[in-house]
């Protein structure tokens, strides 16, 4: 049910993002989804890759601060109100979304949204109760 995500601390300096992607490319790692959150001083790059542990190791070797945590990947029907329904299910159970980002599945049928919750188990229950399809980790890594 849960998907592993790595996050990387980046100073707001030109070339840092390119460096991360180059390191991953050289290690033969494929990026499945990503989002970048930033402030005026720094940014946090969040990635879902096909080989989490390997990616974490090569980035650490190259001096980056890397964290790992679990997120949920949810399939969202590609029609008006698709996302609204999911968010309503969450707010109905008083679950707070820390952050989220979306990407489109290769087939183009459905969108996939990555959610970060503090109360991940509670969130899974609420989503399942609402009949939302939650992707397995392997499904996301091998997209």
């Amino acid at each position, binding site marked *: 049910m849960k998907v592993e*995500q790595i*996050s990387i*601390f*980046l*100073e707001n300096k030109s070339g840092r993002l390119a460096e991360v992607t180059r390191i991953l490319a050289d290690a033969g790692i494929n990026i499945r989804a990503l989002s970048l*959150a*930033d*402030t005026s*001083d*720094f940014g*946090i790059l*969040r990635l879902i890759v096909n080989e989490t542990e390997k990616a974490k190791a090569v980035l650490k070797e190259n*001096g*980056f*601060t*890397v*964290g790992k*945590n679990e997120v949920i990947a949810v399939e969202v029907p590609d029609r008006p109100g698709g996302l609204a329904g999911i968010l309503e299910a969450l707010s109905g159970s008083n679950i707070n979304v*820390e*952050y989220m980002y979306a990407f489109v599945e290769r087939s183009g049928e459905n969108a996939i949204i990555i959610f*970060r919750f503090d109360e991940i188990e509670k969130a899974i229950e609420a989503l399942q109760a609402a009949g939302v399809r939650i992707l397995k980790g392997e499904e996301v890594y091998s997209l």
Partner: protein
Amino acid sequence: MIWNEEYETMPREALEAIQLKRLQGVVERVYATVAPYRKKMDDAGVRPSDIKKLEDLKKLPFTTKDDLRDNYPFGMFAVPLERVVRVHASSGTTGKPTVVGYTKRDIDTWAELMARTLTCAGVHRGDIVHNAYGYGLFTGGLGFHYGAERLGATVIPISGGNTKRQIMIMRDFGSTVLTCTPSYALNIAEVIRESGLDPSGLKLRVGIFGAEPWSEKMRAEIERQLGIDAIDIYGLSEIIGPGVSVECIEKKEGLHIFEDHFIPEIIDPDTEEVLPHGETGELVFTTLTKEAFPVIRYRTRDITRLITEPCTCGRTLYRMEKIMGRTDDMLIIRGVNVFPSQIEHVLMSIEGVEPHYQIIVDREGALDVMEIQVEVSEQIFSDEIKALEGLAKRIEQELKESLAVSCRVRLVEPKTIQRSEGKAKRVIDKRKI
């Protein structure tokens, strides 16, 4: 004008006779009443009776900020606490401040010295003194306040901050004298200019600026922008506060030391040998008249030299040159003394923060800004922005509480702070003063 003609223009021989008598007195007193002094003297094998001439001063052990820290808060006081009517404090090298005390008579001595100081700078009865030094544990505010009252001037105890309001009051009340740090004086000038006011609409005539080092170039700038005479003053709480030495308005060349109360020495900071007059080294002071908190050969860590040539103003007191630097890593940020070790102390108390940090000091306009760069370790890293921003804010808050001056914390990637062999380069000071 001279406030105390008798002492400030005394022939050297007579002055030195008074110094010796007072020195013998203070050494006897600290030996009898302050255990750490007695122990140090016993360890060095020197007795109060060994002080037979002024040169014998060099037989006495030095006192350092570490001694004051080890005896925090009141362990170096020479009188019972019932006789201490006031305490002040300055930055210590770790989390604890350096505490000093005053008896009623000390407060009186201090007011006399500050009346001398103000007179030396050309201030007189009838002047309106706009005192923008901070009031509180810092000695600047109250030191000037009591001196100006003793002199018979009118004091505006405005303290620091809220510059626009300061300027309004300065204009409306007709302030003639400005007392603050030199960088704050420049900041006031800047705000006056920005608000489109004409500085000539103010009645300011003279400013007495201290608590941080400043150059002749900065003096010229302040004098031009505010249309005043800018006078340098020196002091430190361990000795008494402001009122240790000051420039005369006649010459503005070297700061007259009130030697009937303080004996200056210049030493080589490495060998600790006393250097001949005129040579540059570390300034050391012995207080002669203080009751609550006398200090013997206190190492100020300030670098200067003594000028013994007579001054045209008529004072026979030796002068010290403007401070040229420090022998330690103390920083002065907006008039507040900051030791990198204090910053380290705060950082280390926060779980997960690694001992890799750098302090970057700069000047934005006329004001000092300090940025602390902290490396983000895996322990403190989070994938959530609010967690990292919260951490930076928390460090800022804790630093502000400990240092009494605000700073900005910037989170940086690991290994971005230069590692050095041996002593780490902790401070990058970009200020041009």
